């Protein structure tokens, strides 16, 4: 019902990269996601907004099966990536996560060197044929993550020794180093200054040419700036999903309107 391709002003042909239908998520007895259906398009930035605790992160983690690691978490409904059910028994979540990368809400660099942080993904996926290849991937990823200039002289120092904002960008660089098809970003700019934020937003825009990006954000301005589609979550429900311009100028639901104008949340 939220799928309205005709409303889009853009001419380019968009396909649905991820389709979720009737997704329910339970943490033990807590019903965290209630019947959410959403279609995430390719070559699009989709923003998830909503008050704290409404289930944005939970839903995001369903998209690459990170919730599998939480014992009490139970998921119903179906989620398809390129038409294939990702919760099918035959799907190996490891393969899925190589395609659907993730930047976590809290920065979590490995307690290894900055270089190894970036190189780990390409190494285990065999993306680099030589040391020079790997060096190149590391440099490119760090540049795209808008952190190269700050760390180029200390690549072999621990990633955990960076500031919070630097760690966040390091994690972004780590996620894009494996060249995923879909990138899930959970509040990637929460600890960044305006300059770094602008750089990350630029990166997101650039990634759109090849990938789908889903970004969770608490900043309405950011959602308006970077995304083409916006989904508003409230208490586990997907209240409204539409083109970003529509959501911000002409929301259909009054809860959406109250939230973006700052009256609830």
């Amino acid at each position: 019902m939220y799928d309205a391709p005709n409303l889009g002003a853009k001419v380019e042909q968009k396909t649905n990269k991820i389709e979720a239908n009737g997704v329910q998520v339970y943490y033990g007895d807590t019903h965290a996601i209630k019947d959410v259906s959403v279609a995430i398009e390719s070559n699009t930035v989709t923003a998830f907004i909503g008050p704290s605790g409404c289930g944005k992160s939970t839903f995001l983690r369903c998209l690459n099966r990170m919730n599998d690691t939480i014992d009490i978490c139970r998921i119903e409904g179906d989620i398809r990536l390129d038409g294939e059910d990702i919760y099918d028994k035959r799907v190996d979540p490891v393969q899925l996560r190589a395609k659907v990368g993730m930047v976590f809400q809290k920065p979590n660099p490995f307690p290894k060197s900055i270089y190894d942080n970036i190189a780990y993904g390409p190494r285990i996926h065999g993306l680099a044929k030589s040391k020079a290849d790997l060096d190149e991937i590391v440099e490119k990823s760090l540049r795209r993550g808008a952190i190269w200039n700050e760390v180029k002289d200390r690549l072999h120092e621990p990633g955990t020794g960076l500031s919070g904002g630097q760690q966040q960008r390091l994690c972004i660089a780590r996620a894009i180093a494996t060249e995923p098809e879909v990138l899930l970003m959970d509040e990637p700019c929460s600890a960044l200054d305006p300059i770094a934020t602008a750089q990350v937003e630029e990166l997101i825009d650039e990634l759109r040419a090849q990938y789908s990006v889903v970004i969770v954000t608490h900043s309405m301005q950011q959602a308006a700036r970077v995304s083409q589609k916006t989904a508003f979550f409230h208490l586990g429900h997907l209240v409204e999903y539409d083109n970003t311009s529509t959501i911000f100028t002409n929301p259909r639901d009054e809860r959406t309107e109250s939230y973006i104008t700052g009256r609830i949340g």
Partner: protein
Amino acid sequence: MTDATSSGGATPRHSSSLLTQDARTLKRNAAESRFRAYGLSAVVIAMLALVFLLGSILHNGSSAFRQTFITLDVYLDPAKLDKKGTGNAEEIRKVTTFGYAPLIAASFEKLFEEEGIGVEGISAKKAGDLISKEGAADLRRFVHEDTTRVGETVSFSFLASGRIDGFFKGRVTMESAERDSNVSPAQLMLAEQLKEAGHLKTSWNWGFLTMADASENRPEAAGLGVAILGSFYMMIVVLVLSLPIGVAASIYLEEFAPKNWITDIIEVNISNLAAVPSIVFGILGLAIFINFAGLPQSAPIVGGLVLTLMTLPTIIIATRASLKAVPPSIRDAALGVGASKMQAVFHHVLPLAAPGILTGTIIGLAQALGETAPLLLIGMVAFVREFPAAPPEGFFDPASALPVQVYNWTQRADPAFVERASGAIIVLLVFLLIMNAIAIVLRRRFERRW
């Protein structure tokens, strides 16, 4: 709530001066200083107990590392050793230890003549009793190795007998010698003369660390060699078995096993096993490894297996605790870039847990090293004179163990064994210190790699 009443009272706290303490602050500060005093006194008492313990062990035991030696020129008389004069090695080897005692007596006789040493009533033969019964055996061993030396005069350093050694360490006095059937005051006087003449010296005693145990009536010859080797073999068995099994089991339980009632039961049982008295493991080992599997008694392999059973819970508990302490976000990060569960564990979680695992392992090993009770049950308390062979056969040879040797020596009547037992405790403590030092060094090394 008390805050509310006091701030709502007649004198509001905000108005009082910062330079004077109000009643509440005084009370809190008093409570804090009382608590500090309790803590400090507990630490002081513990330190005193430790100092007293170490002090008494060092006081009693350090003398075990020094031993009294008597140096004599011994003429390997062909008339005694090679009566037929054939020079045949086989014939010479037939002479028993008993046949060597006259050689020592003859040396004393010569000494008395040449240097004017001597005490009335002490014949050369009686003077021979100053030397350990091990002395004649040493002499015989020397000749056995090279029978061509018969006929030469060799300078030989003999162990002094336990009582003479005790005299120079203050354990035996002239008065006690009066009542002692093993030594007479005259012999002690002779010993003093020998010392003045430079034939008798107290010096460092490697034999304490290298020799095998000796029988009841020759404490001076008793050493820890077999016990150290036995303990070492057992530690190898324990390390080789318990570290991989323990770490693998913990990783499986912590990272891979489904959380259900079966794993809950296993978890509870592992914790309980850590609290089972060690002697119970001894009975288990006796039943399984010796009676059922038919492994030899008193062998380091059996001791090692029993100690492995004892050490496993310690290692598993320590390993699981350190795996649990690794933040889950690290696992998420690894899974997030597409690592498999196993890669996440082995590349990221295990290196971070390694310092804790190592510490747990070495604490487990140290416990095992000091364990006595289960070894008594599997027969390691036996009197072993033979050194076990090199591994792997040596694992199946009878051997002793350090703590059992301590236990053994404290059972013996001769007071010289008290010194020996304390010395063995010192050796045990030194080994424990070394193991702890290794743990600290390894920890540092791993922690520097973040």
